[in-house]
């Protein structure tokens, strides 16, 4: 079946396209992108007439989510996670291995992929563990993980425990062409910290996690990537000093890429003090840092030192967050707020163009993970995100499709949202916003 998205603004930087064009979907794949494509839909296809106020992009890929299955299905399942993903405009997600049991073997990988097939919404790319059980002692069976479908390895939730293990991981993964994704955090410096170490934590009496805890591990691994030639991807970068290390690494030609989460380029640790003191939905790891860090993340997004915006979607049950601040788990949900935040805070004020946003959220994640997507070239999977940059969206945690509601953005209003999500040629989500066509 053919489907024509007609008359929207198409932004496809991988193919140098930004203009009012038509996109023809042929079955599960992109047929053609061009001007005034003929409507020859004899076989019962359909036309979606869109205006240039809608933006058609290659599908957005969130390369950092926690789907919690197997083992913590009270927080999220693969099924609810991919529903949340397509609702938030993501056509694919890469899921972290810190499940229970850990995704350190083909059996867990296959289970996740089976659940994803059953849910049949967003594509799911499992990420395997670097070390067996994420214990930081010995490498997991990474060849087996790759064969089973893992697209990267990480011990996320924890850093790779030692420099030696990180070295081995970077060397070993180079055989498979997959990146090592690092959760940068020196454990001894982090200690039992729960908030960014600075004036806010000092005033609130919260144990601090200094920015250096992140930058030290990033620096270590950038040196190791340089030494080994391995591919390193820095997850959820938050500290300005880490960004400096990444910039230096890139300037020396090291194969290092880095992602930033929406909360780290919008929020600071001031959110811990007000409006809700000790709000556990402002507790995440890495923590919300100071304005200098937040502004550095924005500058990295603008100047290209940041490669990817990823959410670190970390669902936690209400009961788990409704406790004393230092006992609450780290993390917030992010799949259904990321695009709104990025459009409102990056594109609308003119910090970046839409084509750069598409690079950050589609082209680059696809390239780093080596997965299809990031392009609307003929023959590519028809994974498409349709943005509505002028749509006003007020975040209501009760309406999130994720199983968990732990967002600090409840009640916030953003200009910019998702109009529709197409995966493999199927319209899997339509927000029903004004101006969205009735089908014909």
């Amino acid at each position, binding site marked *: 079946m053919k489907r024509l998205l007609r008359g929207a603004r198409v932004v496809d930087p991988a193919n140098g396209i930004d203009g009012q064009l038509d996109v023809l979907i042929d079955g599960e794949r992109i047929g053609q992108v061009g001007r005034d494509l003929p409507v020859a839909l004899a076989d019962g296809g359909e036309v979606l007439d869109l205006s240039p106020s809608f933006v058609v992009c290659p599908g957005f890929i969130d390369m950092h989510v926690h789907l919690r299955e197997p083992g913590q299905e009270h927080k999220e399942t693969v099924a609810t996670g991919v529903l949340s993903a397509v609702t938030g405009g993501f056509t694919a997600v890469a899921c972290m291995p810190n499940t229970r049991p850990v995704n350190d073997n083909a059996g867990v990988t296959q289970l996740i992929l089976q659940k994803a097939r059953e849910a049949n919404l967003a594509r799911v790319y499992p990420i395997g563990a670097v070390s067996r059980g994420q214990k930081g002692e010995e490498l997991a069976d990474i060849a087996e993980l790759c064969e089973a479908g893992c697209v990267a390895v990480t011990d996320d939730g924890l850093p790779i425990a030692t420099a030696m293990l990180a070295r081995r991981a970077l060397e070993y993964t180079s055989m498979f062409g997959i990146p090592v994704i690092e959760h940068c955090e020196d454990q001894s410096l982090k200690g039992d910290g729960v908030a960014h*170490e*600075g004036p806010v934590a*000092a005033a609130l009496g919260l144990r601090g996690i200094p920015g250096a805890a992140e930058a030290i591990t990033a620096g270590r691994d950038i040196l190791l990537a340089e030494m080994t030639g391995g591919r390193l991807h820095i997850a959820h970068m938050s500290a300005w000093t880490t960004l400096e290390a990444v910039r230096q690494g890139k300037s020396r030609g090291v194969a290092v890429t880095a992602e930033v989460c929406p909360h780290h380029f919008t929020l600071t640790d001031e959110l811990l003090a007000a409006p809700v003191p000790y709000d556990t939905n402002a507790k995440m790891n890495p923590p919300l840092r100071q304005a200098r860090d937040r502004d550095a993340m924005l500058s990295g997004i603008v100047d290209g030192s940041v490669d990817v915006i990823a959410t670190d979607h970390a669902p936690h049950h209400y009961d788990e967050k409704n406790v004393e601040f230092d006992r609450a788990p780290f993390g917030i949900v992010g799949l259904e707020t990321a695009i709104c935040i990025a459009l409102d805070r990056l594109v609308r004020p003119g910090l970046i163009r839409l084509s750069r946003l598409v690079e950050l959220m589609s082209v680059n994640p696809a390239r780093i993970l080596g997965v299809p997507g990031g392009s609307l070239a003929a023959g590519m999977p028809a994974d498409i995100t349709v943005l509505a940059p002028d749509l006003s969206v007020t975040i209501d945690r009760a309406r999130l499709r994720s199983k968990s509601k732990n967002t600090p953005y409840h009640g916030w209003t953003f200009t910019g949202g998702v109009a529709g999500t197409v995966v493999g040629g199927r319209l899997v989500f339509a927000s029903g916003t004004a101006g969205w066509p009735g089908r014909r």
Partner: protein
Amino acid sequence: MSTAAATALSQKNLLGIADLSPEEIVLILDTADAMKEVGRRAIKKVPTLRGRTVVNLFFEPSTRTRTSFEIAEKRLSADTLNVAIGTSSVVKGETLVDTALNIEAMAPSMIVLRHASSGACHLLSRICKAAIINAGDGMHEHPTQALLDAFTIRERKGSLSGLKVAIFGDLLHSRVLRSNLLLLRKLGAEPWVCGPATLIPPGLVDMGVRVTTKVDEAVEGADVVMMLRIQLERMQGGYFPSLREYFRTFGMTEERVQRAKPDVIIMHPGPINRGVEIASEVADGPYSVILDQVANGVAVRMAVLYLLAGGVDDETVA
């Protein structure tokens, strides 16, 4: 203060000094003057809180603070109940929120909370109708301690304005320090803090305080010397090498006190570690007001309970 005197507290709870205006602090101290008079009577009891239930919910061991609150409550004729960890259902795995909701269901007027987590009182204040009084939350605040310290200073010095108040010890973990810094700044004192560099949190200087690691510099010309307790586990945590070295470098000795003003007062929230942060001669010396602080604690807590109960028209204590 030159501004209009406060006649009531604007907030339902006492979560921290951060929430109090200077006028409200003065109101509490003035009220405590009247309460101290009650403590000098033959029958140390007024009917102010008759029929009201106050729950002392203590998740950390405490002798001084809990006893002080309990005496204050009893002198105001409140019905008091002590819930301490170990005898509560927390050991059965109940959450703080559920424990609070169960106590709340029995309709107490106030809950006095001591808890190891910073912000625990804020959490309770969001779910409880009862007034919450912070009796120490983690590393955050201990507002009644700061109030009784201010009361004691005011009693000796007449006013806090312009006084050099030098505070020594574990500046990183101390809730007493945080409450005192906020209060001293609000009442116009000039706080100095001094401790080992490992126990000075980054950002402390942003709280409007002079920070030094040199004891002599901090104590020089001080009107008030306030010692904080050094806990043994800080040495085990590697913040300083040994108690011996700590005392050599930071311990408050007679010799060091000589640099302060002749009428200096020495304070300590207790319990004191003799020979660790303070020499016995200093703790027991003529300028020590450590036991005055304990005595004043009852009057200050009576004032807080009384004002939070909303009863400023009660002539029995006026």
